Every structure is written in structure tokens, then in C-alpha cells.
């Protein structure tokens, strides 16, 4: 019996959203009589932080404090249409729609303020603290609340904005087949260090080292939590979980949480993450988003590391001890590959 060390690497380009001309998001923004703003979406936040990021984007675009923005979402009866939370699209698609809606609402807000201050709306700026004032003359000012109330009760204006983000359908070149299905790609590189036991087929992941390029990290702590949790899920896909271990034969599938294996708190490995920020030209404030890409590079990197450790190529997931032992038997034992420092 021996435990063989292995190191594997994978690099990925990950498309943000599914751009075949049918992946729009919409947002509606309106001011309330107390000078606070509601962003209506039907996009879903399952805990990744889409709601928080939409709130940051709306506050930044409107020029108001983040405390004054409320994001009302996850109800398709009350929010405008959204394709959903998939393909790492939330920050990029919803964020862009929120910017468009918030810009329109800001325009009306400044018009209402201009009417009250008897100045030109083009000369007005926001201080991000709830005030609107004439550029270069901070004393000539009105609060966002007063401007909202004047619009509502005196001027008869709705301070609101509509936003949609839709990338037109990419045409296919008839001769070359060339097309641009995606406008923003995120990138990642991940190295896995693990060891494989050639007697039991057990794989122990010892360390993950990764670099992710995902546009501007609009909320760095949430990016980090996505990357940590996503890499765990990637490890789970690579080594543990499946509803049908003998696919297409449905037998022996996990039927409950006991049988549907996932790595527990004792199976996790230290993960050293580097985030590279290269703002995307068409991203909201340069953001693209982590999303699915958090998990994706882990799978090929684990498979490569197992090859590096014992010299067998396993091309179906998850890479269970049974598959490793069968492959080792077929090969006639472990053949550790060259290891680079």
C-alpha cells in the first residue's frame, strides 16, 4: 500500500450568460415619498449576493446612500421579467439593467430638484449622502427626500426608471461559422494537490491554489465567499456526488442525505485564492461575476492530479474509489507521473 502525491492544473474561460439572443434581464426603479428608492426585479438571489450587488449598483448610479435603496425581488408577479439565476449572469445582466433603470430615475430626480431650486438640471450633482446641489455651489442644495416629495405632491412627476439589458442575437457567418455568442468571459486557473491511496482508492485533497479573473469585484467579500463555497462544490462534483453512480443504470443512486455523498466539514482543504480584477467593458462598473466558474476548474484539475499521482485517466465523474481501483487493476498498478515543483 502506498499513498501517491499528485498535482493537477486546469485553466478555463467561462462565458458570462447565454447570449444566443434570448438572455435579457429587466429592472424597474422608483422613488418613494420618503426619498428612498425601490428596485423591483424578479431575478433570484439564492445567497450568492445578487440582491446586495444590485443594491450597490442602484445606489451608486442614483447617487444616493446605499441605506436608501431597497431591492424587492424574487417575485415574478411584482418584478419585471428576468431569465433567472444561471450561467453566472446575475451581476452582469441584472446589474446592467439596474444601471439603465437607475439612470432614468436619476434624470427625473434631478429635473424635480432643478425645478425646486430654479436651476438647470444639467448643473446638478449628488453627494451620495442624500443631497443634490449645484455643481461648485454646495449651499445651493435640496435633499433627495425633499425633491422626491416635491415631484410626488407638487410637480406631479413619477421619479422612476425602466431598464433592460439584452445583447442582440449574434449572427453566424455563413462560410466560416464564426459568431460571438458571448460578450464577457471570466477566467480561472486552479492547481490541486492531492494524494491517492492505491489500496483503497481513497483520494484526499490537500490544497487548492487558484487565481480568478472576474472583472471588477463589486463586493470583494462576497466574491471570496462564492469562490470558497464554489470550489468546495467543484471538489464534491469531482470526487463525491452523483444521483446515478452507474449511469445510465439508475441502481445504487443516493436516496437521501446519508447516501448522497458530499464532502463534510472534515473533508475540506485549505484554498489559497488570488482575485485578479480586470474591469469588463460591458459589465456593470466592470463586473462580470464568479458564479458557476467557482466550481468548474476544480473538476479537470482533480482528474489531472489523479493522473499525475497514479497514471490513470478517469473520464467519468465522480472519480470514486471504485473507479480508481478498477483503473489501477486494469493498468497493473500505480504509475506515478513526473512531478514538477
Amino acid at each position, binding site marked *: 500500500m502506498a499513498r501517491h502525491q499528485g498535482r493537477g492544473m486546469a485553466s478555463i474561460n467561462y462565458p458570462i450568460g447565454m447570449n444566443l439572443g434570448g438572455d435579457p434581464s429587466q429592472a424597474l426603479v422608483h422613488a418613494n415619498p420618503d426619498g428612498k428608492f425601490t428596485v423591483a426585479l424578479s431575478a433570484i438571489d*439564492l*445567497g*450568492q*449576493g445578487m440582491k446586495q450587488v444590485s443594491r450597490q449598483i442602484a445606489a451608486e448610479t442614483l447617487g444616493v446612500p446605499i441605506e436608501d435603496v431597497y431591492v424587492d425581488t424574487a417575485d415574478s408577479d411584482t418584478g419585471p421579467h428576468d431569465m433567472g439565476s444561471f450561467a453566472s449572469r446575475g451581476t452582469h445582466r441584472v446589474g446592467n439593467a439596474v444601471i439603465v433603470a437607475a439612470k432614468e430615475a436619476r434624470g427625473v430626480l434631478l429635473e424635480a430638484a432643478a425645478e425646486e431650486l430654479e436651476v438647470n438640471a444639467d448643473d446638478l450633482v449628488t453627494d451620495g449622502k442624500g443631497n443634490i446641489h449645484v455643481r461648485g455651489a454646495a449651499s445651493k442644495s435640496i435633499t433627495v427626500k425633499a425633491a422626491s416629495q416635491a415631484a410626488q405632491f407638487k410637480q406631479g412627476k413619477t421619479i422612476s426608471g425602466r431598464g433592460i439589458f439584452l445583447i442582440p442575437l449574434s449572427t453566424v457567418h455563413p462560410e466560416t461559422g464564426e459568431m460571438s455568442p458571448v460578450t464577457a468571459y471570466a477566467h480561472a486557473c486552479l492547481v490541486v494537490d492531492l494524494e491517492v491511496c492505491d489500496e483503497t482508492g481513497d483520494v484526499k485533497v490537500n490544497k487548492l491554489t487558484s487565481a480568478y479573473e472576474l472583472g471588477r469585484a463589486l463586493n470583494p*467579500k*462576497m466574491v*471570496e*465567499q462564492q469562490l*470558497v*463555497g*464554489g*470550489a*468546495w*462544490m467543484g471538489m464534491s462534483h469531482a470526487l463525491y456526488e452523483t444521483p446515478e453512480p452507474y449511469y445510465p443504470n439508475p441502481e445504487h443512486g443516493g436516496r*437521501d*442525505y*446519508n447516501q448522497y455523498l*458530499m464532502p*463534510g*466539514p*472534515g473533508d*475540506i482543504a485549505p*484554498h489559497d485564492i488570488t482575485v485578479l480584477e480586470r474591469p469588463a467593458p460591458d459589465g456593470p462598473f466592470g463586473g462580470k461575476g464568479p458564479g458557476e466558474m467557482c466550481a468548474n476548474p476544480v473538476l479537470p484539475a482533480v482528474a489531472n492530479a489523479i493522473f499525475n499521482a497514479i497514471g490513470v485517466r478517469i473520464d467519468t465523474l465522480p472519480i470514486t474509489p471504485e473507479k480508481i481501483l478498477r483503473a489501477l487493476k486494469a493498468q497493473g498498478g500505480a504509475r506515478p507521473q513526473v512531478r514538477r515543483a
Partner: protein
Amino acid sequence: MARMPVQFRLNGSDRAVFVEPAETLLGTIRRGLGDFAPKFGCGQGTCGVCTVLVDGEPRLGCLTLSVTCEGRSIETASGLADGPTLHPLQAAFMEHFAAQCGFCTPGMLMAAKALLDRNPNPTRVEVVEAIAGNVCRCTGYEPIINAILAAAQQRGARRA
């Protein structure tokens, strides 16, 4: 079958309810007493989201019969905060981004509280053991483990 009277303390308040003989503590707490902090996950004791404390010990609400809790003291995540002041574990979970979808959080908090109440200064391995019966799909466990260790450290610093 006749319903049976049960009295216990729930988060410091005396409560009395009539329960079916086979009713689970989780069902009584959620439907009978309206405390929705403990969650219903698998219903067979494998996911840990229903974890509550019975006389300070972590118990799976979905596998505990309500009638066995007569005279006991039950704690759920609803009782952690003191008015507007969060429990150190809740504050640490927030600080360390230890929740994403949040479904496992009430169970994780109670499993962690049981640990810190009996072992105020746990090692990382002891924290891992304490939450080994609680499944999380989002966080990868690392932020949860770090939050519990941080809460323990903070409590220690307050005592010193």
C-alpha cells in the same frame, strides 16, 4: 388517538401545548408554537437543519418526540439574540460570511452554541466534529468553521 399535554420552556418562556403522541419536537415548535427558526430538511435526521438544544444538548428536532420534552428547556436560534444585540455566534457568522442561502444557519448556530457552552475554547478539529452532522450546500464549511472559532475567541477576550 388522544392528544397529550406537554409543558416545556422554549427560549426561556414556559409553554404548554397539546401534541399528537407521535408528533416531533420540530413540528410542535414550528406549527404549534410558531417558531420557524429550526428548519425542516430531510425529516430523517441526516441534514441537521432542525438542530435545537434540549437541556443544552444538541438534538435533531425531526427525530425527537415532543412528549419526551416534558419539563425540559428547549433553545432555538430565535432565542439567541438579546433584543437588538446579536449573540456572539450570530455576529461572527455575519462577520465571516458564514451564510449564503441561510437554510443550514439556524441548525449550525445551535450545534455551535452547544459546543461553545461546554467547551469555550475549542480546537478546529473539535469545531469540525461539532458541526459534522450539519449539511451546508453553499459555503464550503470553511467560513462557518472560522466564524465559530472567532466567536469562541471573542467570548474568551470578553471574559479576560
